[in-house]
């Protein structure tokens, strides 16, 4: 073989004074970075294989390991960065499309960090959520134009189906196949305990998980994997996935090696076959076609389940969202360009789509102007990192948020961006039985419960600070937001004032 230009990305630094040759790192690294040399009784490392997942660092009993950025430098050049050079080396060697995982990592503005929240002072009192009632419960679904009551005050209007969430947070769509069974189970159990929902993703739903149905959103994507009547009826709501924030306009590809017995049965495809989701739904080429699919799904489930439609945040998101509402969707899900994924072409991940903050503000504004905002709930996704992002999203007009990356980080993800290799050392994005075992659902579902409970507490505190006692009262309340370090145009799209105004 000819010379490879590959250079390591990370350097594994072992403190020989602290290393006891216990070989925990050797046994735990599925990338075979560490190896034991019996002759010299030392543990050796092969830096080039390291993806910096921190598994060895976290498990090393003597803290003998540190992973650093590989110190080899190219001559400084702001245009030809080391990354740009390495990508060319890689493509000229393989002839392939570059693949990446997780969301857009580039230095585009993060608008959440340029928006500030309000608090009550003197003229209206703030509320202490530890002493006074504070409501974070929300209902997702179509709301009627008006409500009719009889003389006794009994509701006469027939309510469309609603999904009740104890807090405006749901776990994003991550399919069984892209993530492990144990990760899937952790999400399902946590959602059930929290009174929120998790999403099956497009990989169907294993029958063992039907018991979590009340907290499950079942997804119908372009591949239609594992979609049948029982599946559609198993969840509390159905989501049609048109696009995904990490790779708008692109389909999906689950490599055949990840399709074992169990995944094959769930997806209804042969063992070992590649699961390819086409870029479009082959039966949707217009809003009218989307309407047909929405109503076929509603018909199948006797109009008992709300139907969500998920799109990636793209340039005309507001107009598209308006069309989706008119097509009969009960909720729109918008996924921003920082949304995570198991695998996406690097160029698409890094260059396609728009920030979720701008898409959300534009969509909410458009639906309000058209007088159809009540007809659908608005759910946003695409890198919601903490509770203040959620509060800002709600104030910009969202009903709820989906968290995917944050949820997998709670499960142990160390953001090494190599989900696509299937060698996830934390047992999340893998189907290797030996690795899947590493994620113990009994431990991990509690971490998810802790995370969402903590966020819920923080949301209540921030709401209380603003003198608001229900999250419903914050929705679309942009007066609670002020921008900082933003230009006129950005403020206009976001529909907020500048700090001090």
């Amino acid at each position, binding site marked *: 073989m000819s010379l490879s230009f590959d250079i390591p990305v990370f350097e594994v630094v072992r403190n020989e004074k602290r290393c006891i040759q216990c070989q925990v790192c050797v*046994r735990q690294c599925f990338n075979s970075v560490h190896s034991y040399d019996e002759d010299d009784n030392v543990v050796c490392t092969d830096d080039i294989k390291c993806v910096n997942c921190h598994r060895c660092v976290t*498990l090393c009993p003597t803290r003998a390991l540190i992973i650093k950025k590989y110190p080899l430098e190219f001559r400084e050049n702001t245009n030809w960065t080391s990354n740009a050079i390495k990508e060319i080396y890689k493509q000229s060697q393989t002839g392939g499309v570059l693949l990446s995982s997780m969301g857009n990592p580039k230095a585009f503005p993060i608008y959440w960090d340029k928006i500030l929240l309000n608090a009550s002072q003197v003229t209206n009192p703030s509320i202490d959520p530890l002493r006074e009632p504070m409501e974070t419960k929300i209902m997702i679904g179509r709301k009627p134009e008006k409500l009719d009551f009889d003389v006794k005050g009994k509701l006469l209007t027939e309510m469309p189906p609603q999904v009740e969430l104890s807090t405006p947070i749901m776990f994003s769509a991550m399919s069984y196949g892209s993530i492990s069974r144990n990760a899937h189970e952790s999400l399902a159990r946590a959602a059930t305990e929290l009174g929120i929902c998790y999403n099956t993703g497009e990989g169907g739903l294993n029958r063992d998980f039907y018991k979590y149905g009340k907290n499950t959103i079942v997804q119908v994507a372009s591949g239609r994997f594992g979609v049948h009547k029982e599946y559609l009826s198993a969840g509390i709501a159905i989501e049609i996935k048109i696009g995904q924030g990490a790779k708008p306009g692109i389909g999906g590809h689950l490599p055949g090696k990840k399709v074992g017995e169990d995944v094959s049965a769930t997806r209804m495809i042969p063992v070992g076959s590649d699961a390819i989701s086409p870029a479009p739904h082959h039966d949707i080429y217009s809003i009218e076609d989307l309407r047909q699919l929405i109503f076929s799904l509603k018909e199948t489930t006797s109009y008992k389940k709300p139907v969500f439609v998920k799109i990636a945040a793209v340039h005309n998101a507001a107009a598209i969202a308006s069309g989706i509402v008119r097509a009969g969707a009960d909720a729109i899900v918008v996924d921003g360009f920082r949304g995570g994924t198991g695998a996406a072409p690097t160029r698409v991940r890094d260059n396609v789509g728009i920030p979720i903050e701008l898409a959300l503000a534009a969509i909410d504004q458009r639906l309000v102007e058209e007088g159809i905002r009540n007809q659908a709930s608005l759910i946003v996704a695409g890198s919601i990192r903490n509770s203040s992002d959620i509060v800002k999203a709600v104030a910009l007009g969202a009903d709820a948020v989906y968290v995917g990356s944050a949820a997998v980080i709670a499960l142990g993800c160390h953001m090494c961006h190599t989900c696509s290799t299937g060698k996830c050392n934390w047992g999340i994005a893998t189907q290797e039985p030996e690795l899947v*075992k590493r994620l113990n659902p009994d431990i991990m579902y509690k971490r998810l419960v802790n995370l969402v409970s903590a966020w819920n507490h923080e949301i209540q505190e921030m709401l209380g600070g603003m003198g608001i006692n229900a999250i419903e009262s914050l929705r679309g309340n942009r007066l609670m937001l002020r921008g900082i370090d933003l230009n006129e145009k950005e403020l206009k799209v976001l529909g907020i004032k500048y700090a001090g105004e």
Partner: protein
Amino acid sequence: MKKVYAFETKCLGCGLCEVYCRTAHSKFKDVVKAHNRDNVISAIVIENIFRQSKPISYFVLQCRHCLSPRCVKACISGAMHKDEQGIVHNDKKRCVGCLSCVSVCPFGAIKKSRDCKTISKCDLCVGYGEPLCVKNCPNDAIKLLDENEVEVALK
């Protein structure tokens, strides 16, 4: 009586239980010193189950603290004894290193020390509160349970 149980379905074979067992039974209570300066061996042992030269499962072996322990019967110096709680101990002061206990243990749970002058076996880390293998297992695969709790855990 509570004993240490390991669950194969959860065990990762990482070997941290062995590291902490050695530390617990060393005169040094520091992991690095216990390994570099002391030659105690771990009383808990992970056996790999191989398929096509790749470990596919792990089996963790440690003293079962038998009701009627053969090691106690076989001991020629009276070093092996069962205390009132039912824990089988090895009295290092009395142990002459004849290794009779090693040869009679039906589970192979008693290991001879590196210098072959004594043996190493699980004493449930009495004095530590919780056995260190249980406390440091990263996947909750090793648990200290009584007989009833084990039945529940196995369901």
